[in-house]
């Protein structure tokens, strides 16, 4: 990265991958990637190698989130450096394979961009999940999409939380972009969700092409939601959940939650209230896969992130 008068100049993004089926029951990515593997015309852009890829084929075949362990938590240095053995868990082997094909993670040979397509049972709309507030290239991409499709077309969840961040499948690439679209039940393909995902990806790829051709994207501000805390369900002495997401919170992803607002309803009808500090913006409210991860919802705080201007580095 080098700076120029108005921003930073960056190398072109020449190798891009689109992952579906990191979780085998999140059907939008599975469906789109399968189509693009058969006929990739829609996602091809001149000068860019775009590789659609099914990230966890065994989980996709069984239409489950994972076989042995969550692939989207498996890209730690420890796992990636494990010596190859036949009895390694399915997702460990798959993580190592993905690292070979699209990485190595952290190296100059890694893919430039990976878009990882996910669905959620939460009412999150289209949400970009980003891992690096300093990645001006991706911030500018999201800004481009918002300017083209409308500011309300997507939210940005930024996860740099020291305890809550995790090593994602897409983290193998230089630029990691998670796209989470909901609400959609696991195992279901909704046409409206398919359409929104397709549309967002179209403009994301257009951005890369424009950038590679030399278009300059001026400095801008991007509204993001910074991951703050994870809130578990109330549980009884056996560890079983003892309350549900309150009807006033259900489906209200991204809407302000203030101390004193209802968050849970016990099975015998009592309300439990939010007791945190200040206004937060909850999301991942009632995500099916998070029951086992002890997460009823997460809280975020709104922030405006400045993004430097970007243009392609011409050496």
């Amino acid at each position, binding site marked *: 990265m080098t700076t120029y008068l108005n921003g930073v100049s960056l190398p072109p993004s020449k190798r891009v991958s689109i992952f579906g089926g990191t979780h085998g029951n999140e059907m939008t990515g599975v*469906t*789109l990637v*399968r*189509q693009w593997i058969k*006929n990739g015309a829609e996602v091809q852009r001149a000068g860019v190698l775009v590789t659609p890829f099914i990230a966890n084929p065994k989980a996709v075949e069984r*239409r489950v989130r994972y076989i042995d362990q969550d692939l989207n938590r498996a890209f730690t240095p420890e796992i990636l450096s494990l010596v190859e053995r036949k009895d390694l868990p399915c997702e460990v082997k798959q993580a190592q394979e993905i690292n070979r094909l699209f990485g190595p993670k952290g190296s100059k040979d890694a893919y430039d961009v990976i878009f990882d397509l996910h669905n959620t*049972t939460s009412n999150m709309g289209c949400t970009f999940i980003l891992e690096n507030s300093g990645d001006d290239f991706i911030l500018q991409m999201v800004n481009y999409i918002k300017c083209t499709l409308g500011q309300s077309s997507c939210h940005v969840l930024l996860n740099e939380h020291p305890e809550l961040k995790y090593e994602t499948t897409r983290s193998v690439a230089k630029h990691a972009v998670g796209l989470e679209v909901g*609400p*959609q*039940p*696991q*195992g*279901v*393909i*909704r*046409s*409206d969700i*398919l*359409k929104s995902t397709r549309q967002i990806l179209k403009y994301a790829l257009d951005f890369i092409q424009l950038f590679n051709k030399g278009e300059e994207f001026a400095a801008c501000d991007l509204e993001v939601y910074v991951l703050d805390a994870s809130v578990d369900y109330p549980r009884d002495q056996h560890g*079983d*959940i*003892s309350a*549900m*997401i*309150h*009807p006033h919170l*259900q489906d209200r992803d991204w809407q302000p939650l203030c101390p004193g607002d209802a968050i849970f*309803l016990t*099975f*015998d009808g009592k309300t439990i209230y939010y007791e945190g500090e200040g206004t937060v913006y909850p999301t991942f409210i*009632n995500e*099916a*896969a998070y*029951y*086992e991860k002890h997460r009823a919802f997460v809280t975020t705080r709104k922030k405006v992130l400045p993004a430097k201007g970007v243009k392609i580095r011409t050496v």
Partner: protein
Amino acid sequence: MGDKLTKQQEEHMASFAPLSRVIVTGGTHGDELAGVYLVQKGLVKQPEFLQRETFTAQAIVANPEASRKSCRFVDTDLNRCFTFESLSSSTANSSSYEIRRAKELNHLLGPKGSNEAVDFICDLHTTTANMGTCIIVDSEKDYLSCQAAHYLKEVSTHPCQIMLIKSGTPTFSMMSLAKHYLTLEIGPAPHGVIRADIYNTMKMLVGHLLDFIDRFNKGQEFPAFNMDCFQIERKFDYPRDEDGQLTACIHPKLQDSDFKPLFQGDPIFQSFVSEESICYEAQDPICPIFINEASYYSKGIAFWGTKIQTFEITSIKVSI
């Protein structure tokens, strides 16, 4: 049927013995959490909810192993294991958890078709389809269950539809262990998720059902009525390629339109590749339900086509 049905022809009334063994089951599918949690946390822990003057109902988790794992089933769909054939097949051959469990339940709540079977089962389900509150009854000839369904439809604060299984289908579901039975199917809810609104609706309806049975037992006569319902006709599968993979999904105009009639030329599927519409071709209108139910992809069902039927349901009264 084990229960003696006496038709008093002058009064056109069906009478039945009082119902004393009443069972509420959740977790027939272990990932349909409203039923699982209502039984485990709402009913077992609040036993007074199950008590009425004339009986006390019992709440049971039908598929405990699948419920523990929050999956639909362990080996095979429990809710298809209750045909007479399946129940009487040799246990020694079965390595399927659900086939063994079905026999256990038949021993506990049945035997199906006998006088010893429990009087009433209410089975609790959720669906990813936008079916609102749907009451499923096997046959229009089970007057008592139809009257129960009608009662629920009348008292419910939410609109309810009554669905009938396809005529002539051998009974296969868990609820069919009992002499009389119905299923509450509520949606939309993702599997593996508990929604408070669905839980509360389900609880409210179970309460009303127990009230109905109590009133019946105390001698209230439920008059004859015309039951408008949706009866299963046929299933519609997704368009698939030679490998069995879907080539289209439910069309946006059909998605979430459960119970609304489909006419010739209406779009039902949308191709993944071209986004072109595939249309309903038959001349006769049909009412689709279970549109885009997650667990039906592997059963080759995009939706069920139903026809609106009206049946005369005889009045019922308890026989002392």
